[in-house]
């Protein structure tokens, strides 16, 4: 069977089975949740965040003063937060529990206290 004929046949079978286009498939994914996080020496706002397992999340990170870092080690998620820029990191929580995020760019006396918690629920 030539490739063109095979492609036409596949499309016909897919239509018969009710399979939609790729665009339809993407739209069926859980909606992405956007959370804005502000970093300021030596706090994150908010510092407690609740997420749902399986729901994609985008963190939009800004610093209100100096160069900072955002690190969520349990999900291998991190970003530099550079003044006057928005850093975006996307991830899908794949496990439940409470996890620490922290500033991992040394920013002064109080850096060690600069952390927060993310709770992922089922």
């Amino acid at each position, binding site marked *: 069977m030539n490739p063109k004929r095979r492609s036409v046949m596949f499309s016909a079978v897919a239509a018969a089975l009710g399979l939609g286009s790729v665009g339809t498939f993407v739209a069926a994914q859980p909606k992405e949740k956007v959370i804005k996080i502000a970093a300021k020496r030596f706090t994150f706002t908010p510092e407690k965040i609740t997420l749902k397992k399986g729901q994609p999340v985008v963190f939009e990170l800004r610093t209100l003063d100096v160069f900072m870092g955002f690190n969520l080690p*349990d999900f291998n998620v991190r970003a530099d937060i550079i003044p006057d820029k928005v850093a975006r990191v996307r991830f899908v929580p794949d496990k439940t529990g409470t996890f620490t995020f*922290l500033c*991992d760019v040394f920013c002064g*006396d109080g850096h060690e206290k600069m952390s927060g918690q993310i709770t992922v629920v089922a």
Partner: protein
Amino acid sequence: MVKEFNRREFLRLSALGGVGVVFASALPGMAGAAGQDDFYFVQMSDTHWGFQGPPNPDAKGTLHKAVAAVNALERQPDFIMFTGDLTHTTDNPVERRKRMTEFKEIVGALKVKDVRFMPGEHDASLDNGKAFQEFFGPTHYTFDHKGVHFIVVDNVSDPRAMVGDEQLAWLAADLKNQKPDAPIVVFTHRPLFDLVPQWDWATRDGAKAIDLLMPYKNLTVFYGHIHQEHHQMTGHIAHHAAKGLMFPLPAPGSQPNRTPLPWNPAEPYKGLGFRNVDAEVNLAEFKISEYPVVKQG
């Protein structure tokens, strides 16, 4: 009281998987240096000069006491190594230099004059090591002593807790000059491995550094940063953290935050101290002995 652990105990506990258990260090390569003089050095760490707060009501006296304790050792070390956080951080560049000046004056009272320094993030991360270099010289360097090659790796001058590609290339070039069985000691401030990343007890590109160290079978790492004695293996490489000299920190991952342990008036200076690292060349042993700042009881 002095705690001392020897190579045999180290090997036994290693065999038992004694990670987190106090054990001794060893530099097996010292066997190859037989015939040379035994020696020992002192590791002092995390003096945080300039810190003030409830975790240490004697913040201005502890370093003096530590200097006196080292000076009181019956046999003086060949050299003393300060593994970072000499001073407590400050945003004020003038105050930072004042603290470094005072620190240097205080440790100038050490009897041993071969004293070496490296920065911690409190010394160097806010100005990329500028003030540190003015007072103490390079932040990464090597030296040799009685057959042992010492490498000081800076993982703090970059506030992102990185060694950096340039320094990694320097490290690789230095190691190329060493034989695979050469006795090598590496000093860092932060752990090179991921001890507790949730507490920032890690080096972001530390795995790259460890990859460079791995071919050397007689290599040991001594570091600071975590203000407590701690021992961990990455492959055949032992990493030994030292106690601090201002306030102790909690055991790795034992609580949500790494807040200093409270001062206990009933046991002042508990958890603070320094260590002797003793190379017994003829016995091919490298022993760690822990000393308190102030003798208890």
